[in-house]
């Protein structure tokens, strides 16, 4: 299968699942891509063997982690390109979308990053895909936080009396309260108490803060030198 065909499929599934908050069936995917059902059937077999999608017995096509990654990345490229072509270069929307469909398979990540930046600085009033853009930003930061950003071990792996330096708060984006209480990257903290279940009292900025085990595991730290 041609790489661009694969990307088109994954993008279409991802787009469908975001729009409808469920995965498509063969028929729905075929009509979205203007293809016939038998063609989709045979292409899916290839994607399944490539580890991009999983098809449930009732005929629902779901993305694997790998497939979703590709799908979202292509979708983002498409949005950025279309936005650039229509909003900044002034092309009409349909042809911008068509052209974006071709370009999205060849364009590099760096170009997309830079184009995205250009769009933001040049035009803060982009109307196209506004909602989606914002949602994207949220998704990106969350995923990045949990997977890429922080490799440090959780504070719960240290023991009572240890002095540690906080590296990051990962996982829960909602842990704003920790930041407010002074558990910010670079801050020195002392583990004042550790119960056997992993609940902690952490002293930071002269204040004792008690946290539940699941919160403690989200605080990435390194031993203080």
């Amino acid at each position, binding site marked *: 299968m041609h790489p661009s065909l694969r990307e088109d499929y994954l993008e279409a599934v991802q787009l469908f699942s975001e729009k409808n908050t469920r995965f498509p069936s063969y028929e729905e995917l075929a009509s979205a891509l203007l293809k016939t059902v038998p063609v989709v059937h045979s292409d899916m077999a290839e994607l399944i063997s490539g580890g991009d999608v999983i098809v449930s017995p009732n005929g629902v096509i779901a993305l694997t982690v790998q497939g979703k990654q590709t799908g979202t990345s292509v979708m983002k490229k498409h949005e950025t390109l279309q936005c650039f072509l229509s909003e900044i270069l002034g092309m009409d929307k349909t042809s911008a979308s068509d052209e974006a469909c071709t370009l999205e398979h060849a364009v590099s990540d760096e170009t997309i990053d830079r184009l995205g930046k250009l769009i933001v600085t040049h035009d803060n009033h982009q109307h196209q895909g506004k909602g989606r853009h*914002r949602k994207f930003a949220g998704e990106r930061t969350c995923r*990045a936080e949990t997977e890429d950003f922080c490799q440090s071990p959780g504070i719960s792996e240290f023991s009572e009396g240890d002095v540690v330096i906080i590296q990051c708060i990962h996982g829960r984006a909602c842990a704003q309260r920790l*930041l407010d209480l002074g558990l910010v990257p670079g801050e020195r903290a002392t583990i004042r108490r550790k119960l056997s279940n992993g609940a902690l009292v952490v002293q930071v900025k*002269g*204040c004792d803060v*008690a946290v539940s085990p699941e919160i403690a595991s989200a605080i990435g730290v390194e031993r203080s030198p």
Partner: protein
Amino acid sequence: MKIALLGNPGVGKSLIFNQLTGLGVEVNRYPGSSVELEYGNVCYKQEKTEIVDLPGIYSLDGNSEEETLVRTFLTSGGADVIVAVLDATKLERNLYLFVQAAEFSPKMIAVINMIDAAERQGMHIDAGILSSHLGVPVILAAASEGKNIDRILPVALGEATPARVHVPYDHHIEAALKSLEKTIGTPIHMNLLALQGTGDDPVLLDAAGAIAQEISMRHRMSVSQIIATNRHNYAREITSAVIKRTDRKKPYDLDSLLTRTFPGIPILCTILFLLLLSVFMIGSWMEGIIVAAFTSMIITPFTALALPPLWNQIGFSLLIALQAGFGIAFPFVFTFYIGLSLLEDTGYMTRAAFLADRAMHRIGLHGQAIIPMVIGFGCTVPAVMSLRLLKTRREQTIAAVLVTMIPCSARTVVIAGIVAAFVGIFWAFSIYLIIFVLLILTAVVLSRITPGEQFGMIVEMSILRRPQAKLVLAKSWLRIKEFLFIAMPVLIVTSILLGLCQYLGLTELFEQMVAPVTVTLLGLPVYASTALLFGVFRKELAFETLAVLAGTANLGSVMTNVQLYTFAVVSVLFVPCVSTMAVLYRQLGARIAIITSIYTVFLGLFIGAIINILMK
């Protein structure tokens, strides 16, 4: 003029508020225990000044109810002057909120409270240097001693200015702020919020969202983390410039006993047991006196008036309601509140929450849920009100059902009056055992089936300190007033309605209707259903009504032990009282109130039937 008090939870804001306005006193040591705003008026130099006590918060960036409320208050210019109250012992952490508030550029002054405690810890704060850093007048105060509190109003009204605080943000953030300001024209505090995804201007949010994504990619850290770190570092710089430390001998660290599994958990259990025991002992003693006095001085003279039957019934119901209200409120609830305030003001409550975290996790809650549970042993009404300190709907729902099942002091009266007195003390304890088993089962099931996400506990530990009798009493008094305000109207209305039903003969009709359930299912006398009905209105009334209907106070002579035991179990388990239902409805909505009521009715009848079948 309008002045608002702003600060972290537990900095003594409420105390300062009450000293300024001269109303009662309440010290809130619990995060989020003062959600509603308190207003007070004061006259200074022939001018009326309104003072608002804003809820205690740690930050203006979050999306909790309190934070949003304060943020809206600041942006809408709710006050002419903001009095920022800071805890001297935690100056660095407290300045974090100050610099955030300063970005909204209101006129401000800073009150550094608890300066006495800071001195004792060997920290000396230079007000002059701090004032030059912040650009606003600084008052060093000690609210617990009333020191310098009288300076707050003159300085706030005369010298308040917008603070000169400029947090040196990361240069990417600074660039983003400038570009947003230039392109969209929004002020800096809105841009900072928008970068963290908060705000209601879609154009700004959209632009800020894209930039934030870029920045967080570059820094490999979320924008909120960068901004928080910048602010904390700035606060640290100021703090290190204004505080001089001298070494003091560290006092003995009580926490080495209190927060360890051993002896912490035995201590926790002992404290809770002693609290409940003393409430029960003092409560029943006081209740006897109050009820007797009320009966001989008001009810007997009233019945002697021999009014027309209808009026007699209505008046009698009203008096009974008042007697019930005061009879339970002062002896039990007030005594309990004093104990509770002691636990809070000593700072022990946060330790209890920490220790209880593990057990609470098993049932889908977290440590802070121990507070509503403990309060529930005193009275269910305030326990339900305190549910708001749980963060998620899921936790509130689970805790609401559990709290209504916990034997409150009125239910303890039923158990003691019926079972301990006539059947035996051992059987009385067995009822507690049954309730706890049911509680745990309910909790386990609920934690499985209740939808929603669990949010763990993040609690700042209060400093351990000696409570002040005056503050404890004043706080308890404020709470009992709130209790009476909610419970009394419900008690009076229900009592009069029940009285009218009795007058119209509807209760007999009711007895006949539910007779199959009472007699066949539970094996109780027919009149027991009326007693149970009265129990809905106030739990211990079930016991008193039973005595009236049975025609003798010696219940053992008219009912078998099994009947007495069944009656006690059913009345303790089934339906929270009307005041509880009212407050459940107010706090969590009709659905939860109805579900809880229905569940407890069926649970009560079910367990009652089982006991009846097993023991007959």
